[in-house]
């Protein structure tokens, strides 16, 4: 059995760990509120964008010559996957869930003979994918400096994707992120952004047709790159809310576990203290008896 001193030290160390996890939980809770707010505020933009694109693409007359970002490059050979993770750890299953989802998708792709290219956003994803898919990773982007998800960062990723698409480096682009449902539930998502899956967008049936200035094609080809950035930005917002939520519940669990451990250790400590006292008493009594 551990000595009294050892037990005391262990209790102290568990207690200080508990303090840290508790503080992290508080911080995560505060950040979560902000992240959730900005995710909600960002929603109208992407919704409106979706609606406009939907209206445009349903009104487009010449499907053959529609912009490549909408109709695809005509091939289905090279897949680009943008895996979005966090830059920090200690957030429960947040990163591993995305990675798991991405990995199973990657395996499916390679099995069906498709080429794979990966861009990782956030250093944690890069760390985890490096081992198995290191040779497929073409870029790693990390936004450690920026405190919140901002559109500027999303645009950077978006521009990179579009540039690569323009250079015909890939045919299909999918982004991986965690969708925020609530604090305990985050759903890893795979969303195809190039070519745009128009059928998946919610249809807002509008009877009246639009006037376009300039014509549809030109607007579409201007709008689609913006939409890519918007989708990525949306994913970033969802991700940051999910990250904080996931961290909060992970830290909550850790705090609770630490509490249980302290209780258990305290009982053990008391018991062995009592045992030591009893032992001493027996020694004294039997010493007195033998006199």
């Amino acid at each position: 059995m551990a000595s009294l001193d050892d037990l005391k030290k262990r209790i102290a160390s568990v207690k200080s760990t508990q303090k840290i996890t508790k503080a992290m939980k508080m911080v995560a809770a505060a950040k979560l509120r902000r992240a959730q707010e900005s995710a909600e505020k960002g929603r109208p933009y992407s919704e409106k964008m979706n609606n406009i694109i939907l209206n445009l693409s349903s009104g487009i007359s010449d499907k053959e010559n529609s912009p490549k970002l909408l109709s695809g490059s005509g091939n289905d050979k090279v897949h680009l996957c943008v895996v979005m993770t966090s830059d920090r750890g200690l957030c429960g299953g947040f990163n591993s869930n995305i990675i798991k989802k991405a990995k199973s998708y990657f395996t499916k792709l390679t099995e069906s003979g498709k080429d794979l290219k990966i861009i990782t956003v956030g250093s944690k994803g890069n760390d985890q994918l490096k081992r198995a898919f290191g040779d497929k990773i073409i870029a790693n982007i990390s936004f450690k400096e920026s405190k919140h998800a901002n559109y500027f960062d999303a645009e950077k990723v978006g521009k990179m994707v579009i540039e690569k698409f323009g250079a015909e480096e890939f045919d299909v682009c999918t982004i991986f992120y965690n969708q925020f449902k609530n604090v305990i539930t985050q759903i890893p998502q795979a969303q195809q952004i190039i070519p745009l899956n128009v059928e998946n967008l919610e249809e807002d049936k509008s009877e009246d047709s639009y006037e376009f200035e300039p014509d549809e094609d030109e607007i579409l080809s201007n709008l689609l790159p913006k939409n890519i950035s918007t989708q990525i930005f949306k994913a970033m917002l969802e991700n940051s809310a999910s990250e904080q939520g996931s961290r909060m519940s992970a830290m909550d669990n850790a705090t609770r576990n630490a509490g249980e451990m302290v209780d258990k250790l305290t009982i053990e400590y008391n018991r062995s203290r009592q045992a030591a006292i009893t032992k001493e008493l027996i020694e004294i009594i039997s010493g007195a008896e033998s006199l």
Partner: protein
Amino acid sequence: MSEEFKVEIVNPEKSFLVKEDVSEVVVPAFEGEMGILKDHISIISFLKPGIIKILSKSGDENFYVEDGIVEFKNNNLSILTSSIFNLNDFDKTKQQELLKQAEDEASKPEINDQSKYLVDQKVEVLKSIN
């Protein structure tokens, strides 16, 4: 009958401005300035750098935008833009900063015609403010 309609400006981070009592909005559409009044036909267009003027009962407002999309439908005007500034709190330093950025971009050798046109517009508009 009232001659007012609703305008909503959203940027990716939040809903920037919502106004219900707007009588006219002038937007710098790609092919020239466009004034929108109530019961305008449904239209989608995109913006070039310029000034958005919003005229309403509760006072006029001016905004500087760099890009964006406008959609008008059922007397709802939506403006989606990623870079918008209210001219009231648009100070000299900010203006100079943006102007410098635009001029730098314009002097890049690899710039193509369309973006050159847009950047030139930006420079012009920024210079005309104040």
